[in-house]
């Protein structure tokens, strides 16, 4: 290779890798802010369907989540690891309880008015391999679509497992019309997270 070819190749490579690095760090920041916000909504179910009951439940859940987030922020500023953790845990537990109550209330209300139609987002379920969240679409009392919003993605292997398991779980759910289906073998964590998130969405919908 001639010196000028080496120089140009080095220049080109460094800039290409630099661009990749830039894109990557903005992607990392985006995913971190996503994790932070989903941390606050721990077990809260957000509902995009608009009936009064559900909206009220959602507001309640959101309120609880805000409390949790605030508590967490407070705990962060406290700066003592142990107490921060304890405070955050307590806040999260509170938030979870509140959200659960809200969701149950919403479910009860919704059940009276029969199952609603619309798209419902399930809770973010934390697993050993990352967060799991699905949304479910209900039309005329039937589950018509389940979409993964977040799949377990810690390490390339679990991404592979998720990509493999998600379509299987989706088709099982659509057949069974409930979240009570078998785990996909070899994808236990993914299956459990997927089905728990789905169940929370179904609960919200009063399905």
């Amino acid at each position, binding site marked *: *290779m*001639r010196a*000028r*070819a080496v120089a*140009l*190749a080095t220049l*080109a*490579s*460094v800039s*290409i*890798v630099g*661009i*990749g*690095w830039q*894109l*990557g*760090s903005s*992607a*990392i920041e985006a*995913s971190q802010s996503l994790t932070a916000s989903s941390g606050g909504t721990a077990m809260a179910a957000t509902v995009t369907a608009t009936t009064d009951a559900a909206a009220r439940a959602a507001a309640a859940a959101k309120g609880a989540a805000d409390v949790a987030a605030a508590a967490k922020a407070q705990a962060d500023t406290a700066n003592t690891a142990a107490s921060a953790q304890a405070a955050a845990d307590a806040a999260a537990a509170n938030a979870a309880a509140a959200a659960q109550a809200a969701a149950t209330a919403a479910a009860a209300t919704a059940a009276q008015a029969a199952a609603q139609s619309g798209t419902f987002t399930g809770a973010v379920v934390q697993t050993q391999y990352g967060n799991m969240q699905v949304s479910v679409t209900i039309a005329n009392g039937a589950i018509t679509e389940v979409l993964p919003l977040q799949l377990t*993605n*810690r*390490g*390339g*292997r*679990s*991404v*592979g*497992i998720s*990509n*493999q398991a998600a379509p299987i779980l989706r088709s099982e759910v659509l057949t069974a019309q409930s979240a009570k289906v078998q785990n996909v*073998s*070899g*994808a236990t964590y993914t299956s459990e997270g997927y089905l728990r998130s789905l169940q929370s969405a179904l609960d919200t919908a009063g399905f």
Partner: protein
Amino acid sequence: MSLDTRKTRVGTAPANTPRVTSPHPAYQKRMRLADSLQILCIASVAIVIAIFLADGGAAKFGTPADAFTSLGIIAGLVGTDLLLIMLVLAARLPPIDRAFGHDQAMAVHQSLGKPALYLILGHAALLITGYSLAENVNVVVETWNMFTTLPDMPLAFLGLALMIGVVITSLVVVRRKFRYEAWHAVHLLAYFSVLVAIPHQLSVGGLLRDGAIARYYWLALYAAVAGSIIVFRFLLPVIRSLRHRLVVDRVDAVAPGVASITLTGRKLDRLRATSGQFFVWRFWADGLWWQAHPFSLSSAPSARGLRITVRGLGDASKQLPHVKRGTRVSFEGPYGLFTENARTLLRVVLIAAGIGVAPIRSLLETVSFAPGNATVLLRSHSLGDTYLVDELTDLCRRRGAELRIIAGKRPKGVSTWLPADAVSAGISLSTIVPELESSDIYICGPRPWTDAVVRDARSAGVPKKQIHYERFDW
């Protein structure tokens, strides 16, 4: 040593000779192409690393498991990129041939084989380790898990096994034990091993997931490589063979076992072949059709005909000097940079031994030089066993080149290209050829002999870029 200059020596050079040290016009053009191709290759490696980083890869080194997994992914990406480069190098792409020549491209192809295999093996080993650390199981269990639970992994393991086989059979020591045809059949499995690895790249791991830009880039890369192989390696030779309809027109005996074969066909100027290039020929006659042989043109190609001069050495090529008039010939080519295109300066030295005289003979016909600026050296055991000498003498006279025939046996136990008496007299390339360091040197002959000439030229201070030779052994 006997020197025979056959009265071709040109008198004193005219006073207004062109500045022979100025670069040849072909050189800059070719080097620009070569530079771009090399930059493209290196940039392609940078791109796959950028793809990994763009997906947030830089953050995935926190735990040992993540670090192993990330390194494994990078090894797989770079290794696969090298594999694709190897395939392109073997695809006989015209720009690659123009810039580097077929044998140089194949030398790079060969030198990439082991690094690519190590990277792919590293890819497997690092990912197995990374996954097993993440799941707290041992590597054997993890390998089994991968094999049974991940999509498309059995195919990927098959691809890895094939690739190991292909590289092992290509190691020089092992390769010698095979016939060319057997080795080549195994080698073609490389295409298959690259293909079966594709599904797992797309389904396992999230880097090339559905909808990601990287996935489209990756698929486009594969499509481009596959397209160039199909077009230039397979389709183009078939189309050209059908279009030009080459047949044997005449066979002239040159010496026992050596013959010049003239081929005619339609619109041969469309081939854009040049002196010094070779084709891979297949003669459709009994006992010959199953082997294809590379032979260089032994005279400048024209619209009317192509001529090769062959010596029956291999099992089937023994019959070649007896091939019948009218035999159909299919071919791949023209290939090679043993041509005017490789020139860097305005002086030229052509050195041949044995049947290596064939491309030298065609080069002498058309290579550009002012009278007095070319020397032809013909090396043989004795004055009698040289080929095409009359043609060379005639051409040298017409074009103003000096012809020297250097005859005599090489000394035993000494690595040299010259006869024993020349060596003991302290003669070397630089004492035979005036202004050697400002000349392009073309060498064609048996491999060890060629190597000896190259060493002699290098020790005389001739830069590598001025020394041109091509290897035909596989």
